[in-house]
Structures are given as C-alpha cells and as structure tokens.
C-alpha cells in the first residue's frame, strides 16, 4: 500500500537579509518521513527546529527547496483539501459563526449552500459542539474554538489531518479533554494524523509513533513506536510504562545545546 505521506530528502531554505546581503538559511535538511495510511504520528522537537516548516511544506503552503513530498503517491503542488491544517491559534474568522467557519473550506470547493450547512452541523456534532453552531468565536472558550477549527479541517474530508501544536494554548484540563476527544475522532474517522507538539507527554500520550526532530538544520533524528493504548478516564500518564516511553523521547531530545533559551532571543 502507498504511504499516506512520503517526505523524501526535503530541504527548505529561507532568504534572510543580514549585513545588507541576502543569506540563505537552511531551516530543514535531509528530511525523510513516511506515514502509513491511518496512522497517528506525533512530531516533537525544540522550538525553532523546523516543525512548522515541515508542516507548511506538507500542507503545500510553501514549496521545498529540494526533495519531494508525496501524498498518497501524488506530489504536493500547493494547498488542497486532501490535507487540512489545524493551527495552535485556532485561526477562526472572528466575524463568522461556528457553522460559517466550518463552511469556509467547503466554499472553496464549491459545495452548494444547503449541503454546506448540513456538513458543517454534522462536523460540529462530531466535535461535540451541537447547540453552538450560531456562536461567534469570541463567544466560545479556547477549547471550543479549537474544536471548531478541528471540525473545519475535517469538514473538507481530508485524507491527512495536519495539526501544529493545536492544544498548546489551552489550559491543562481543557487540553487533556481535547486530547481524548481527538483520539476518539481519529478512531471514528480513520484519518491519517500528523500532530506537532512541544510536549513530550502529549506526544507520547497521543501518538502511535513519535518522530523526534533536532534543529540546525532540522531533521528527524528518531522515530519511537508507542505501544500504549490509553483508555479514557484512566490516568495513563501516571503509568510506569508511560514514564519509560516518556524518558526515551526525553533522552532522544537531549542532543542539542542546553543554552537554547538565551541563544534564541
């Protein structure tokens, strides 16, 4: 079977102007990654290592400088609704209701109005927001906004769901409840998910596999299989097996320089 996502030898350079001259800055290099269809992959790595760059490339929002990205065997040439992205900051249009926000992607592919509304309501139901269809984003809590963003992404029926630290801005309780929700939806829909996070706990808790990225230039240094099967309502995170896997990821992340904070002003 063809992999859902195939990233092969990808490099991405940015032009940065410095000392009057333009310089190339290599954000990611020699990036290889294969995600089988239906898998939940989490990507973890320090700030600035190129996680978002990778995601933008897969989303087709930017083009790689070298290498190739295949989605179900076909090359990525730009954004399309076979992939959908969920961003950390929700990125909902504040002047649209929840329903209208979910309809946005459907408008771009020309779904008729009636059907749009029906599809939107279905997906809002899927994320547990029935009854909130006519709320504006400012009338929703952070967690609810992120649910809308997830519904919006799912509504275009993408084969791959790309998520860039979607829960980082939420408080711990809300985050945990959304994590469970996401796993439920993933199981229900069978989508391929690429989930980027800073949090080791989150990566281990959610992922079937955890890809560890290291910076300068960014590449995937380890891929760790997670053989936990979290059961809702149980405190998996306090389980010793969880602690062991967590430690493996933690160790894989320990390569880079310790003084990152100051160096990254």
């Amino acid at each position, binding site marked *: 079977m063809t992999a859902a996502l195939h990233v092969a030898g990808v490099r991405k350079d940015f032009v940065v102007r410095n000392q009057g001259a333009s310089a190339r800055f290599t954000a990611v290099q020699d990036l290889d990654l294969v995600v089988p269809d239906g898998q939940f992959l989490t990507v973890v790595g320090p700030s600035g290592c190129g996680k978002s760059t990778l995601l933008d490339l897969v989303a087709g929002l930017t083009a790689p400088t070298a290498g190739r990205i295949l989605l179900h065997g076909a090359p990525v040439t730009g954004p399309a609704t076979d992939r959908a992205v969920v961003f950390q900051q929700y990125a909902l249009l504040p002047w649209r209701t929840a329903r209208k926000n979910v309809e946005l*992607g459907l408008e771009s592919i020309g779904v008729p109005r009636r059907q749009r509304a029906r599809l939107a309501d279905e997906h809002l139901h899927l994320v547990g927001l029935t009854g909130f269809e006519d709320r504006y984003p400012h009338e929703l809590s952070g967690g609810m906004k992120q649910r809308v963003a997830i519904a919006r992404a799912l509504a275009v029926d993408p084969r791959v769901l790309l998520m860039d630290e979607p829960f980082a801005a939420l408080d711990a309780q809300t985050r945990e409840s959304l994590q469970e929700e996401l796993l439920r939806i993933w199981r229900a829909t069978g989508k391929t998910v690429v989930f980027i996070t800073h949090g080791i706990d989150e990566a281990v808790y959610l992922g079937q596999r955890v890809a560890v990225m290291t910076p300068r230039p960014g590449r995937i240094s380890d891929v760790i299989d997670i053989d936990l099967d979290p059961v809702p309502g149980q405190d998996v995170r306090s389980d010793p097996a969880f602690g062991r896997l967590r430690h493996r990821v933690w160790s894989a992340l320990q390569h880079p320089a310790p003084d990152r904070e100051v160096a990254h002003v």
Partner: protein
Amino acid sequence: MSSSTLTRPVAAALDVAPEDYRRRAGLDVAARPGRFRLAVGRLARGSVAVVAFAALWEVAPRLGLVDRVFLPPLSVALGALADLVANGQLAVHLQASLTRALIGLSIAISAAIPLGAAIGRSPAVARLLNPVLELFRNTAALALLPVFVLVLGIGETSKIALVVYACFFPVLLSTITGVRTVDPLLLKSARSLGLHPLQLFTKVTLPAAVPTIFTGVRMAGAASILVLVAAEMVGARAGLGYLVTAAQQNFAIPDMYAGILTIALVGLAINAVLLLAERRLSRWRPSA
C-alpha cells in the same frame, strides 16, 4: 495550624464583577435586563451637562453677560429654527448639504477602499504612490478650496470634489491599515483550505479590515460636514453652510444660530448612523 494573634478581617468590601468576569460566568452581558430603565436613568444623568449648557446659553444673553444682538438666547435661536422648519427652508438647505455630503462620501469610499487595498497588499504600489499621497493628505482641504473653485467651477462639482478630497484620506489610510493588519494566520489557514486569491480577498482580507476601515469612514463623515460648511460659503444657492453665511450677511443672527444648531445635529446624526452601521457590521465582535 500554627495559629497566632488573629485579628479582625479587612473591610469586607464587595468587589463588583467586571464585564469579562460576567462573560466568563456565562451571564448575558450584551442584552442586559432592565435595559430600558437603565437607559432612561443614564439619559437623565447625561442630560445634566447638556441642560446646563442650554441654560447658560439662554440666561447669559438675558442677563447681559453677552451681547444679545450677536448671541441671542437659545430660545430665540430655537424659534428661528422652528420658523425655518415651518416654512420649509431648512428642508431645502438640509437636503442640499446632505446630498453633497453623501455623494462625496460615497465617491471617496468607493475610490479609497480599492486603492487602499492595493497599497496595503502591494509594497510596490505603496512605494510608488506614498509620497504623492502623503503630500496631498497633508494639504489642508480648505487651502485647496480656491483651486477647486477655479478649476471645477462654483457649481456642485467643486463642492462635491472638496468633500471627496477631505473624505478620501481617512478612508484610504484606514483601509491600508486594515488590510495590512489582517492576521497573517487567518490568511494562511484560509489558504490551507484551498481558497483562491480572490476568495481570500473577499472572504478574509476585506471582512477582517472592515472594523478598521469604519473608523476611517466615521472620520470621513465628520470631515465631509466640516469642509462642506466652508465650500457652501462660495457660490452656493442652498446648503447649511450657505444658510449660515447668508444669515450672517443679512444680519439675521438667530437664523445663523439655527443653522449652526442644525449642523451640530447633522453631525450627531451622521456619526450615529455610521456607528450603527459599524455595529451592524461588527456584531461578531465582543461588545466593548
């Protein structure tokens, strides 16, 4: 508890919840009940200053604090206003001014928004046009009144052109700001959903810029009346500016004040209408 000398509690004041907390607590903030009673109360309190001002205007001339001839009591001005309303003159002037203001404002808006969007989105266009726009923007509209009259004549064209000129820049600048400050993440996410450039503009950039643009439109509304008053002093046959000037020249001082009062009310009305429109278009925003 490793207790010690326990003293009396600090003054048990009740802190009033700010709106934010009420919203978090799920209370309905926008449609507050008892709204009507509140509004009446607020009106009464708010009127204090207005009534005081009116009283001063009425009494000062009567007491001889100011010259009655040149500053007649408010009641006299209101009487003149009533006469102007009754004999239909006010309607004529009002219509003339409002028509000019509206046409001018509409032209300015329909020209400034596309140009502002172009400048806001394209650094190249911005670089090309900025200097000349800066030059014009900083040229007081009224200084150009003689030029407009010379080039466009004393008719409607020059008056409307002056309104357009005065209204153009606030709308232009606010459009540029509005378009420039659209959250790039919104654009990025819309792009990731497969929206095309035109869709991006109509569905994301423009709606996002509306509140900012409206600030400019409201400034333009005020500017339109301001310059119109001056423009109507030259070669006009009707309009509120004409009314004030003609009354002044005919020594009909109460009529002049009636005209000024009308201008004030028109200003208030235009502002109120634009505010209302703004609110309609911004219902999605948290009430401030």
